[in-house]
């Protein structure tokens, strides 16, 4: 449609409406961020002021004193980083096998992988918990990490991508005497950068935000990840929103920073998978 003078009012109305949507998205977030620096008295004040009367860091100190929030943060970072690395390794290896090898039962095995992807986690979490108890891994970070390292969806995504790499590349390298591991490292992985980034972003987000599995498998406060630790804070201080918002801010800043850097991978991975962790 060509822009002309008569079209200007509808356009302004459109932008105004969009700004309402955006404001209703952003206002609660700004409110959360400002709440982290407010006193308990100020946080309950209505109408709310978006900019605190004075920026005090007492909430952060209190969260540290009562709940060792820095340990929750460290645990969350460890879990997320290890999950990302392992999930990339596992997915690329399996995807390479499915895309460039021929073996008996390949189609059937791949169908089983796909079927496993369709089963929601909540369906078998009870028995998964029993298995980890049996492995003597209950209440460990290893138990939080391990199930998240296997994403059938990431394998599927990587396989689709590697299928697009011409067989002739692999064959030429084989003739030159390269081993399969060498081919994986020097040919496949460099050509999979975007899919690796997508997997990394997806794995990080799912791991950072996961709640129900840590809730089931962890008991001790020293092992808790941020979402779980903050649920604990919430259990003790139901309405001290200044403390809850401080915890929220600590949990929000890392994932938000990653989003700012890698926006297109977030959108891509979520649009492709569409399934929550």
């Amino acid at each position: 449609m060509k822009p002309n003078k008569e079209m200007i009012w509808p356009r302004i109305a459109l932008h105004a409406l969009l700004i309402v949507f955006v404001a209703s998205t952003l206002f609660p977030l700004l409110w959360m961020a400002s709440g982290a620096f407010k006193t308990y008295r100020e946080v309950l004040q209505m109408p709310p002021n978006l900019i605190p009367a004075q920026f005090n860091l007492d909430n952060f100190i209190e969260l540290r004193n009562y709940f060792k929030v820095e340990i929750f943060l460290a645990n969350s970072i460890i879990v997320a980083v290890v999950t990302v690395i392992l999930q990339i390794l596992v997915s690329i290896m399996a995807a390479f096998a499915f895309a460039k090898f021929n073996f008996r039962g390949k189609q059937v095995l791949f169908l089983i992988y796909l079927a496993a992807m369709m089963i929601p986690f909540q369906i078998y979490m009870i028995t998964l918990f029993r298995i980890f108890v049996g492995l003597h891994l209950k209440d460990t970070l290893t138990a939080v990490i391990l199930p998240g390292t296997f994403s059938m969806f990431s394998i599927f995504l990587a396989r689709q991508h590697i299928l697009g790499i011409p067989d002739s590349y692999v064959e030429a390298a084989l003739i030159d005497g390269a081993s399969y591991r060498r081919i994986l490292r020097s040919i496949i992985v460099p050509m999979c950068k975007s899919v690796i980034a997508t997997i990394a972003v997806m794995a990080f987000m799912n791991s950072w935000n996961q709640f129900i599995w840590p809730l089931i498998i962890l008991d001790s406060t020293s092992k808790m990840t941020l979402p779980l630790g903050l649920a604990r804070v919430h259990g003790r201080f139901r309405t001290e929103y200044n403390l809850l918002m401080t915890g929220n801010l600590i949990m929000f800043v890392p994932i938000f920073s990653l989003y700012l850097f890698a926006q297109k991978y977030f959108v891509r991975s979520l649009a492709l998978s569409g399934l929550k962790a």
Partner: protein
Amino acid sequence: MKRRRGGDLGTLAFLLAPSLAGLVLFNLVPMVYSIYISLTDWDGVSKTPQFIGLKNFFRVFSEELSRNSFLTTFKFILMYVPVVLVLGLLLSLMIHSVTKGKQLYRAAVFIPVVMSWITVSFIWKWIYDPFGLLNYLLSIFGIKGSMWLGNENTALISIVVATAWKDLGFIAIILLAGLDNIPSSYQEAASIDGANALNRFFRVTLPMLTPSLFFVMVLSLINNFQVFDQIYIMTAGGPLNSTRTVVIEIFENAFSFNRMGFASAQALTLFLVILIVTGLQNWIQKRWVVYETE
């Protein structure tokens, strides 16, 4: 070439071993184990669970709390789906039709999607607090507020609104991708044939968008049959069990009441429900989803 490629068994085993181990240990075994446990009265402690056949599955619908948790989950979904579809469609159409600032709008509405449910739940708990933002805004207009999350008539819908707030950006971005895929020549052709904007929307845009709408509908259903995090934080299933969804039921039966067998039966029943509803959607889609045939 084929022969040599298939021949390197050691490499193949090395490549597949980690994912196979994960598949067997963390997917297949728990699934089969769940089916077995659902047929027993296992309490999570005793060494010798009794085999009780399908009794647990009958209880899933004969026990009031359990039956109601399925109804509550359906109610949640019935409120949630129309809200996010209509608002998501509206939002995507608006972003689609602006030229300036498109990227910025997209980026902004997507932020809640990457946040954790815990963050979202704390924020909305604060909004719904008796002394919170919502009641304050209502008081400006002279409307007396409510205890939103503390009242069994408003708790569920309040959580639906918070959930929709988080998911709206996701729905809108998927639909936006669908809109961007409609060739502009279709619109132009309709214009030349004299179709007005409303006609173009209902005769061209909407039918062409049905595959995307179908996709987000299937996802919304699958995801929200499993709704848990936000409810656990905001109401923990209360007040008066009015927000007690299936996964809250499963979680409590398994980990608070040690009814592992019964909880497994509930979980498998939920899985069956998801399969049936997804299957139904697939069957009905033939009547309303328009696929381009080329």
